[in-house]
């Protein structure tokens, strides 16, 4: 802001002695954003982000009929009701099962494909890459009708396997691209060194590559899980029986009820959010780096 602060920041991006760097941080460069220009818009946006979440929590925790803006006295009746009477315990299990199997299928298939893309040149590589990119533009919602026919022919309608397959297929392209990006970041020379030491390709992969891939795999696996946990359409269309349904479909039946029980609806919403919140708290630190390493660099 003053002449002095510009003078302390030398031209060029070279390393400055630590004392200068520390002083610079304290005084701030002349073009640094004033604090209020960060806190004010961010605060407004946080309000927009958090009020809806608060509203859901509020309705799930306060007794029916209460109009208080603080969930006090707190009650867990809504949760009990949704969990037991509205069979959310069953939906929860179904969703978890489908989510875990989608996670396993997606990461295994994508790991193999990603390794091939990262480490080999082969004739149809370009075609395969192009197909992966193009399939990103293919709308799952528009594929419902033919997919329904296929699963019907395979007698998989009403089986969770149909949902696992559909979720996996639509998760695959992005997962393969992400994983191959992560594998490219593992130096090939490390793998070769393991071969020289007598490892087979598979052993070298398991001992050298896999441990370094862990953050990337966790990110891709979490996306697959969260995506299938959240996705509604495939389960709604391919699963007929109510006891086979998943959490989002269960929620939508609460919405569709003639007289909406808002407490139950909010409690169902909270239940559906819990696993996702846990997963995201867990992968938070890899989220941004994962994206920049895998997706953006390609």
């Amino acid at each position: 802001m003053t002449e002095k602060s510009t003078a302390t920041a030398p031209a060029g991006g070279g390393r400055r002695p630590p004392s200068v760097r520390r002083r610079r941080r304290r005084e701030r460069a002349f073009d640094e954003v004033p604090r209020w220009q960060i806190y004010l818009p961010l605060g407004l946006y946080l309000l927009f982000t958090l009020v809806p979440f608060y509203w859901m929590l509020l309705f799930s925790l306060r007794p029916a009929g209460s109009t208080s803006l603080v969930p006090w006295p707190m009650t867990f009746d809504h949760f009990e009701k949704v969990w037991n009477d509205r069979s959310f315990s069953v939906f929860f299990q179904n969703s978890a099962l489908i989510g875990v199997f989608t996670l396993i299928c997606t990461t295994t298939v994508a790991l193999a494909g990603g390794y091939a893309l990262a480490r080999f040149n082969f004739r149809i590589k370009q075609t395969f890459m192009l197909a992966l990119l193009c399939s990103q533009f293919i709308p799952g919602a528009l594929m419902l009708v033919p997919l329904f026919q296929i699963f019907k022919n395979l007698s998989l309608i009403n089986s969770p396997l149909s949902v696992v397959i559909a979720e996996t297929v639509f998760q695959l392209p992005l997962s393969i691209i992400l994983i191959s990006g992560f594998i490219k970041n593992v130096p090939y020379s490390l793998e070769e060194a393991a071969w020289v030491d007598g490892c087979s390709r598979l052993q070298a992969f398991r001992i050298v590559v896999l441990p370094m891939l862990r953050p990337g795999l966790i990110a891709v696996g979490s996306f697959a899980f969260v995506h299938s946990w959240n996705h509604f359409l495939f389960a709604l269309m391919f699963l007929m029986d109510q006891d086979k349904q998943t959490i989002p479909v269960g929620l939508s039946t609460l919405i569709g009820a003639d007289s909406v029980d808002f407490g139950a609806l909010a409690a169902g919403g909270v239940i559906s959010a819990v696993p996702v919140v846990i997963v995201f708290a867990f992968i938070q630190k890899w989220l941004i780096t994962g994206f920049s390493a895998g997706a953006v660099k390609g």
Partner: protein
Amino acid sequence: MAQDSSGAPPGAPKKPGSRTTRAKGTGISPRRLPYLLIAPAVLLMVGFIAYPMLSVFYYSLQNYNATKPWRNGFAGLDNFRRIFTEDPLFWDSLVFSGKWVFTEVTLQLALGLILALLVNQTFVGRAAARAMVFSPWAVSGVLTTTIWLLLYNPSTGVGRYLADAGIGTYGSSVLSDTGTVFWAAVLAELWRGVPFFAILILADLQSIPGDLYEAASVDGANRFRQFFHITLPHLRDAIILSTLLRAVWEFNNVDLLLTLTEGGPAGVTTTLPLYVAVTGFEAHDFGYATALTTVAFAILLFCSILYLRLSKFGGDHK
């Protein structure tokens, strides 16, 4: 061998006779291995993406209606004639889709960009702010619906409390009014969609070398000039790609609208994919639904190619 983390893959065919390192004991020749590795992915994608796509084209030429089986059979282009000449619902849903995609993507991009620039600054509580700001991104369409139904409902929503405090009046639900339902749905989807852009743009912002800004500020460029001459050009490709992906995603997004508005009131929030789903699964008119799908495909493909051409994606730029 030199460290080779980018550029040509090291598994590239090497000159015959040159010394190569090779893993032993796989039992599979390295020539066949990549094909074996991509085989599961290819099989799944052929079986559940390519084949259904082809069958969409096949069914679109058929009369295939579960409620009128006696009329089923080859229909030629009749379904398409019906779409373009006899079906006002198709045009309405197409117009709404266009309006929906355009509004959502522009607003999400603008807000996401601002948000990314904000949380890219250093300030106290940045990590917590990032986590909170990004959180709706992980929320499903149905959960978004659940939350916004609570907020919009005249007896449980924010409006009631504002009215109690003397701001505004008790009203009917914004979702049952054809005039307000569009913006109500847009707001709910914005809540969930902005973080997507913010995350992608933030990831890209972090790859801009800080030297550039330092050099620019030494040369006397203010923050706005730095933004337009360094930040924006650098983000260009990421923005083009993410807007395209997001546009396709918003076009296909059925979860939110199906549960929030059910396409109503009076069909004013029925997108084309929603119309397809209703035609296929409620009217059981598979032939007509797949013909609608084909048309939607064609429109989406045409718009994507046009967009990539016009935006000169990956082309020369500074």
